[in-house]
């Protein structure tokens, strides 16, 4: 009796296995050989629709090079890519961001795209965008198509009520002017003894990113390179921004303490309700969230990049790349060239509320209108700069392990700027040494 059952189970198992062998062979080869696979990270309804429309159009024109649209998500893309790099089944074209793909390229996962890029595209896309995807050896590891930078948003109604005029692009605010405005706008409007309208909010949960990108306007770079070795310095150029934030949080109390645990778009509900008069350090794409989700009649605007020594600010681009394992790199690039031609790039940028990287797109009226602050966002492109951290080996670990935790402790007022600076320097150099001296650690 027992034996019988074992045999039956084994027979069933092998039957299923056999059925599966026959059944699965065909669809597998279908997807692997016939179609190019394109992984997109679009997530807003309009931008998903735009992506799908472009793919459908391409497929109708190129029946021999059909593309399969794959919907990726920002939360899982990293793990997905790493796993598929290892199993050599990465989609032929994938969407990600410049801050990370350079590291992928160094590890040999990405194809060098230089041989495939057409002259028209190369000259039309901004140099600063190309810089964000170029390795030190000159290889290009992705086509930058959407640009992003941090912007400042303000509540028009609150500004008007307090007689504060938002600066024009021609005469921008300095950080100190912003700070004075914030102080004036921080109010207890209902007179219950506690502040209910904060001058400014800064989403500092992933503080390193915000601090590094904004420090550029103070001339701060954090990373310096000597004899091919990177070190971290927190000197007179890096400290002013840290001091300013600490003063606004704990001396003048004009920055909302609740915002230090949030990231960009998570601050929107309080922005809509008038609790935050300004938001510093929010991605330009967040404007779309405002247009879609704000209560009717909510009036807002964009403030030009704040000025310290300059108005420069860090750039990050979204990219399309081809894995080194792809067997059809020319085809993949042909699709990318189509996907990112002038017309389609404009469509993608508009649907995602990001800045297109083509000069010809930036010249289009739809990206220069006063509506929703496009004019200011567009004009600010000239301030975009690559950060000093571009290409620093170990930057990701430095950010997660050292910079974010130390900045979080600093902004929670658990130590002074001096102490933070000291800890940043010693701990940073410990982490960086892991990457710079052949892997030996600590």
């Amino acid at each position, binding site marked *: 009796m027992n034996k019988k059952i074992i045999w039956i189970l084994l027979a069933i198992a092998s039957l299923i296995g056999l059925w599966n062998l026959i059944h*699965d062979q065909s669809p597998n080869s279908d997807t692997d050989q016939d179609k190019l696979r394109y992984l997109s990270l679009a997530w807003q309804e309009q931008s998903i629709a735009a992506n799908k429309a472009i793919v459908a159009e391409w497929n109708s024109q190129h029946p021999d090079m059909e593309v399969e649209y794959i919907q990726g998500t920002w939360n899982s893309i990293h793990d997905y890519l790493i796993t598929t790099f290892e199993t050599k089944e990465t989609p032929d074209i994938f969407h990600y961001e410049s801050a990370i793909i350079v590291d992928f390229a160094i590890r040999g996962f990405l194809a060098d795209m230089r041989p495939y890029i057409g002259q028209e595209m190369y000259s039309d896309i901004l140099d600063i965008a190309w810089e964000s995807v170029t390795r030190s050896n000159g290889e290009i590891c992705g086509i930058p198509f959407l640009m992003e930078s941090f912007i400042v948003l303000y509540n028009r109604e609150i500004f008007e009520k307090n007689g504060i005029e938002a600066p024009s692009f021609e005469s921008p605010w300095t950080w100190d002017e912003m700070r004075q405005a914030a102080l004036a706008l921080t109010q207890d409007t209902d007179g219950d003894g506690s502040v209910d309208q904060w001058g400014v909010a800064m989403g500092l949960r992933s503080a390193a990113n915000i601090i590094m990108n904004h420090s550029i306007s103070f001339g701060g770079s954090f990373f310096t390179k000597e004899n091919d070795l990177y070190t971290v310095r927190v000197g007179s150029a890096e400290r002013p921004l840290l001091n300013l934030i600490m003063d606004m949080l704990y001396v003048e109390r004009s920055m909302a303490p609740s915002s230090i645990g949030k990231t960009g778009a998570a601050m929107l509900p309080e922005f809509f309700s008038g609790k935050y008069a300004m938001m510093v350090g929010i991605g330009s794409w967040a404007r779309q969230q405002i247009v879609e989700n704000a209560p009717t009649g909510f009036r807002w605007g964009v403030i030009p990049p704040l000025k310290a020594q300059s108005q420069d600010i860090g750039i990050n681009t979204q990219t399309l790349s081809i894995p080194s394992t792809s067997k059809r790199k020319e085809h993949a690039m042909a699709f990318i060239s189509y996907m990112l031609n002038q017309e389609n790039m404009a469509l993608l940028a508009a649907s995602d509320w990001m800045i297109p990287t083509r000069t010809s797109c930036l010249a289009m009226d739809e990206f220069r209108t006063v509506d929703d602050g496009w004019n200011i966002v567009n004009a600010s492109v000239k301030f975009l700069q690559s950060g000093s951290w571009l290409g620093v080996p170990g930057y990701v670990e430095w950010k997660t392990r050292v910079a974010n935790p130390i900045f979080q402790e600093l902004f929670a007022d658990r130590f002074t700027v001096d102490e933070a600076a000291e800890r940043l320097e010693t701990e940073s150099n410990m982490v960086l040494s892991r990457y710079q001296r052949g892997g030996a650690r600590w």
Partner: protein
Amino acid sequence: MIKKEGRITLNIKLKTLKRGARSAFIHLALMMFMIYLVFPLLWMVSLSLKPTPEIYSADPSLMPRTVSGEHYRSVLHEERVVRSILNSLYVGITSAALVVLVALPGAYALVRYKSYANNVVLGWILTSQIFPVILLMVPLYMILRSLSLTNSLLGLILVYVVWSMPFVLWMLHGYIKTIPIELEEAATIDGATRIQIVYRILVPVLLPAIGASMLFAFISAWNEFFLALVLLKSPDLLTIPVELAKFTGMEGQARTGPLAAASFIATIPSIVLFAAIQKWFSSGLVAGAVKN
């Protein structure tokens, strides 16, 4: 006589009063548990019924100020969600049934025959439960590919069966240990074989444990995200967690309304399944089995 009767009624009244107080207390305690356990679901349902601008309100309320079905419409409008629920049901139910079917004799063998194998199994359970799963993805994928089991729900089912096995095996082992051996000895004398013992005598006694194990295996499979993401390529095969993830976006933002609506829909099958299995939990079976 009258006096005595009066005392008896008084006694009964006191007893019912006591019983009433006791059950009131139990209800109260359960209510407190339910607030803690169910409140997040209520919040989710409330989000799913709010129009988008209200979701972004800085002064949210549990009861939506305006009730709107827009998110449910947009979720159900995409047939992918419905399709993925069917896929997940297939994967979840099959793997739950297989796990119990296979783990039950296994657990029984571990309790009743003691050998070196027990230590091997324990070692496997510990290692498999502690070692970071994410590091196993690549070798696992390679093995599945060599068996042509990638991009297939069957491959997914087999892996889920193996993944929830350690948990189910050890739990069932615990339950079988609590069963008095006399129960089986009587049957052995009657000439029943081991397999018969397991399926005829232990299963009725173990029904609540089997129900709990099946539910565990079902929910584990129902919620598993990363393997499904990596393994499945055809859009028609995707499971519900992979579909749900598509409502999330950058910086931890999400299309909250549709996500909440789809999540609520995805919560229902597990609840329904438990409501069905719940009958197995009604007591009485065990007492009967032992007496017989």
